[in-house]
């Protein structure tokens, strides 16, 4: 049996998305920006605009506030570097959290080298930001606050609406990395006062290598990719039209099926949680309620995560240790460290992330294999 429980790393492309995309690689391959009078190119352009519309609708944004990019990493880079470039002369400060994805943290390191100041909000043991801390940290020099919507490792959902209120009151730009949350839980950029928001298609059953940045109208952000005139002169490069159209189709499907997916992954997650509760020495990380429906981060006392991962993989079950991107890193994950897990427990932590294609029988199989593994490896461990 093959059981994929690593949907936070990437998801399988929905067959309907793939079907829709394939046409835009074959007969509808034209570049709408350069084939002005071609009816085929017109079709490509219309479909890309449909995509934009689908994203905008689900965010409660306007169509011309959606800019397609090559994915979450580019969107995060653009949001932060773009605001830095727009404030090059006067400089200023950025506020973020220590549990952001590397796409944000590394970008902040770069703008720091450019002469901007970086400040971090503390997080509690669940990885939760306290909006009151932001009130204290924000100053006249703050240019941008970047707080992720939901954490990729432990699933905690941040108080975005409260943060948005504070940034709005202070006239500061608010960016959120919604790569893990978009198309999985509700987002309303107006209600939440979000100015910039990153998404990535491969996290919601769309294709890899395509994403978007929502930019609220009126926000001063410089282009990050210089070149031709695409995306309102703000993001150059020939459109990845099949990708963009695939992203739009994935959003359309999610708009219709999100609630159903939520119910299904919550049900299956509960199956695992119920089983895990009966095994001593396993702790669930992240906020107990304010968390992504599909994420389950487990710290298993006296079982090494790499060992659990390999054992599960030999049995056909795919989960991850830490975050996908840091799997090759031997040091413990920065998120787990920040929430206060000592090194040895961080090395005992695995992440299970469910998806809409998972079946109850797969979870039953996982539960059996997992429980047996915990027992087996604990028996092998020295006292």
């Amino acid at each position, binding site marked *: 049996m093959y059981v994929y429980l690593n949907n936070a790393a990437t998801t399988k492309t929905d067959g309907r998305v793939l079907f829709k995309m394939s046409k835009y690689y074959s007969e509808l391959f034209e570049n709408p920006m350069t084939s002005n009078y071609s009816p085929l190119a017109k079709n490509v352009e219309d479909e890309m605009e449909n995509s934009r519309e689908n994203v905008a609708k689900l965010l409660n944004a306007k169509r011309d506030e959606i800019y397609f990019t090559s994915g979450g990493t580019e969107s995060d880079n653009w949001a932060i570097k773009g605001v830095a470039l727009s404030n090059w002369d006067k400089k200023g400060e950025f506020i973020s959290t220590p549990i952001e994805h590397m796409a944000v943290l590394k970008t902040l390191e770069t703008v720091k080298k450019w002469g901007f100041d970086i400040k971090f909000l503390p997080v509690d043991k669940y990885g939760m930001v306290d909006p009151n801390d932001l009130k204290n940290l924000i100053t006249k020099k703050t240019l941008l606050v970047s707080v992720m919507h939901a954490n990729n490792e432990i699933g905690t959902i941040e108080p975005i609406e409260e943060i948005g209120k504070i940034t709005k009151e202070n006239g500061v730009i608010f960016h959120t990395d919604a790569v893990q949350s978009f198309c999985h839980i509700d987002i309303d950029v107006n209600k939440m006062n979000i100015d910039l928001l990153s998404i990535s298609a491969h996290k919601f059953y769309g294709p890899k290598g395509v994403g978007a940045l929502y930019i609220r109208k009126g926000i001063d952000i410089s282009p990050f990719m210089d070149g031709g005139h695409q995306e309102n002169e703000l993001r150059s490069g020939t459109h990845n039209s099949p990708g963009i159209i695939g992203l739009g189709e994935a959003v359309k499907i999610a708009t219709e099926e999100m609630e159903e997916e939520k119910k299904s992954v919550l049900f299956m997650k509960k199956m695992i949680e119920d089983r895990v509760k009966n095994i001593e020495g396993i702790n669930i990380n992240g906020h107990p309620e304010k968390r992504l429906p599909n994420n389950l981060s487990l710290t298993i006392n*006296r079982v090494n995560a790499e*060992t659990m991962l*390999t*054992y599960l993989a*030999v049995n056909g079950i795919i989960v991850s240790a830490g975050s996908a991107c840091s799997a090759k890193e031997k040091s413990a994950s920065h998120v787990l460290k920040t929430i206060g897990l000592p090194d*040895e427990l961080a090395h*005992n932590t695995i992440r299970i992330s469910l998806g809409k294609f998972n079946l109850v029988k797969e979870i039953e199989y996982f539960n059996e294999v997992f429980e047996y593994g915990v027992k087996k490896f604990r028996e*092998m*461990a*020295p006292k």
Partner: protein
Amino acid sequence: MEIYSKTFIDHFMNPRNVGEIENPDGIGIGENPQKSGKIVFYIKVKDNKLIDIKYKVLGCPSAISSSSLISEFFRDKLIENALKIDTNFLKENLGNLPEDVLECAKLSIAAFQNAILNYKKGGNYDN
């Protein structure tokens, strides 16, 4: 998964000789600074030969596979042979281990050789 050889996975999934030895002739511990890995080897020696080798292991897959391999390979071998090995021994027998897992594998060699040194010192393992 392909970073590991078939032999490696076989040892990992079916580790040989796991356990403790009552009244061992030597005990050795290997532990990393982060405390995420710990291996304890127990040996019985007769006429300079390793007549029984057992171990307990907490750690990554390479810690498990290396310990298992060592316990099987050195049974009935002279203790002097055991003191000569390094990670090349593991690479030759478990397939080419990537650098980042070698650190854990080294722990098992350390624990095993510590057990032999402990035996040579008279097997006083209370300290």
